[in-house]
């Protein structure tokens, strides 16, 4: 019953079970039907692992552990209860915390072991601390930009990449030196400090719209640093959890960069968000057809099928609850409403789905790009809400366009296209959108939340008349 009776093997065995549960957890998360079971498996695994650790016979004092656990829980609970719109910054913040933990442990391990640190161990330890530190500040910056306490605009200057890469190179050089001479304790702060600075500088030139990729990448770094910590502590559990997290972040960044048609090296070296907005003014003389909420509501109410394409603008305007009312109003009239979700829509991977799910829209109405594109040619109305680049036909046809080759939602194939945005100003890629000048396109100028609200009111108002008309 007492701590001393628990043999080392039993603890190891609990860790093994926890690992199995973690793997199952991810596997179950892959489909909505089993996803919650996945969370439970993860929770049980976590409790087992922490419980087993607390039984470890090396532990001489529980006071500080208890205090730290309680403080952590007190911080964690509000972080688990944020609004869905705040999930991106919350995720960035949790990357920062994870990386902080890894860096701190790595630092403590170094000072405990120096000067007798075998080479490989020192190499892994340096990697742990470097990755952990840069992920810490990088994630804080990302969270700041997403929360809009920091400017969202990319801040660039000449030679920026050279400065950044040099900084990282210095940190790596110091690490190599430490591997050779692990007794040089006074150098160790450098492989914490430099990466901390690098983390900040890395995010400075990246615009707000690029944060989803950055978050995925930081996720991957956080995982790798945890895996490195696992190598240092010889903990298989930690290696596996870190590898799972690392590959998860990596896969997500690859998916994101494919969906934006950016090369993956471009993403890896943080050199993005550099696209210069071209002056679109010259073309603005061309005419577009516009419509009021009333006109739009009339067309939508008479349609058989409507595909809604939400984008970054819908998320910014927090229009998801109005969109839900819109969905209800049309569904009640017998209109078939579906949502076409582009992989990079929103402020983090999959964010648009979470926002719409929060607004109680059933997930089987949320179709990804590959599923919705074949349906668009048979669709009466495609309603674009605050999306721009991901609907730009130039990506398919115009080889000179910066977004050429990026997979898009083929809304231009629908019978009628409606676009809700505030102005003719371009989207993230800074280029004009041919879609807006098509004969079949109606521009609905206004804030996403307000305009959708107006349409809903119109649909409710003329509801009786129209039903009689059907």
């Amino acid at each position: 019953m007492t701590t001393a009776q628990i043999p080392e093997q039993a603890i190891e065995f609990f860790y093994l079970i926890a690992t199995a549960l973690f793997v199952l957890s991810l596997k179950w998360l892959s489909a909505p039907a089993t996803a919650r079971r996945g969370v439970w498996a993860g929770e049980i695994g976590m409790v087992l692992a922490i419980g087993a650790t607390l039984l470890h016979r090396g532990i001489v004092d529980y006071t500080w552990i208890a205090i730290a656990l309680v403080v952590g829980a007190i911080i964690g609970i509000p972080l688990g209860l944020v609004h869905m719109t705040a999930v991106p910054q919350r995720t960035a913040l949790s990357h920062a915390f994870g990386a902080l933990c890894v860096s701190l442990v790595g630092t403590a391990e170094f000072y405990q072991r120096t000067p007798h640190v075998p080479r490989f161990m020192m190499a892994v330890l340096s990697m742990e601390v470097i990755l952990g530190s840069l992920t810490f500040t990088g994630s804080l910056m990302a969270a700041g930009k997403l929360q809009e306490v920091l400017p969202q605009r990319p801040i660039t200057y000449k030679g920026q990449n050279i400065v950044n890469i040099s900084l990282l190179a210095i940190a790596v050089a110091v690490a190599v030196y430490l591997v050779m001479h692990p007794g040089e304790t006074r150098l160790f702060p450098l492989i914490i400090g430099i990466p901390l600075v690098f983390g900040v500088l890395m995010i400075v030139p990246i615009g707000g719209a690029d944060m989803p990729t950055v978050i995925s990448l930081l996720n991957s770094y956080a995982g790798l640093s945890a895996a490195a910590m696992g190598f240092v502590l010889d903990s298989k559990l930690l290696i596996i959890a870190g590898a799972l997290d690392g590959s998860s972040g990596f896969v997500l960044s690859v998916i994101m960069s494919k969906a934006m048609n950016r090369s993956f090296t471009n993403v890896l070296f943080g050199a993005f968000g550099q696209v210069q907005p071209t002056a679109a003014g010259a073309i603005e003389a061309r005419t577009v057809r516009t419509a009021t909420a009333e006109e739009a509501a009339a067309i939508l109410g008479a349609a058989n099928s409507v595909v809604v394409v939400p984008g970054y603008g819908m998320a910014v305007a927090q229009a998801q609850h109005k969109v839900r009312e819109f969905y209800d109003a049309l569904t009640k009239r017998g209109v078939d409403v579906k949502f076409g979700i582009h992989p990079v829509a929103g402020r983090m991977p999959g964010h648009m789905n979470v926002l719409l799910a929060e607004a109680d829209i059933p997930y089987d109405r949320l179709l990804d790009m590959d599923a919705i594109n074949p349906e668009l040619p048979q669709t009466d109305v495609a309603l674009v809400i605050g999306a721009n680049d991901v609907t730009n036909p130039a990506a398919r046809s115009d080889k000179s366009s910066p977004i050429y080759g990026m997979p898009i939602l083929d809304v231009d194939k629908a019978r009628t296209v409606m676009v809700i945005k505030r102005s003719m100003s371009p989207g993230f890629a800074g280029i004009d959108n041919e879609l807006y000048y098509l004969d079949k396109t109606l521009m609905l100028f206004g804030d996403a939340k307000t305009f959708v609200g107006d349409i809903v009111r119109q649909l409710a108002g003329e509801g009786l008349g129209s039903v009689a008309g059907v």
Partner: protein
Amino acid sequence: MTSDLITSLYVFMLAAFVGFEVIRRVSPLLHTPLMSLTNALDAIAVVGAILLVGEHKSNLSTVLGALAVAAATSNVVGGFLITDRMLKMFKSSKTKKP
């Protein structure tokens, strides 16, 4: 040590492969919950931090360890909490009463 290292590499390689195969197949619908979940799982680093605090080998290690435990714990608690909240929101139109 060296054999430990090689074994650790085996474990890392297999786990990374499992990660790739499993994550590649996660529905895009669930990318956001996926990220919060892997985040929570990654916070298993708390285990290393707990030992650091508990073994109390130096004041430095205890202080750093305690901070680390608090940081990781907040991820564990917050991560599972929000993942579960998000997943609760995903309703199919079949299971949902209108």
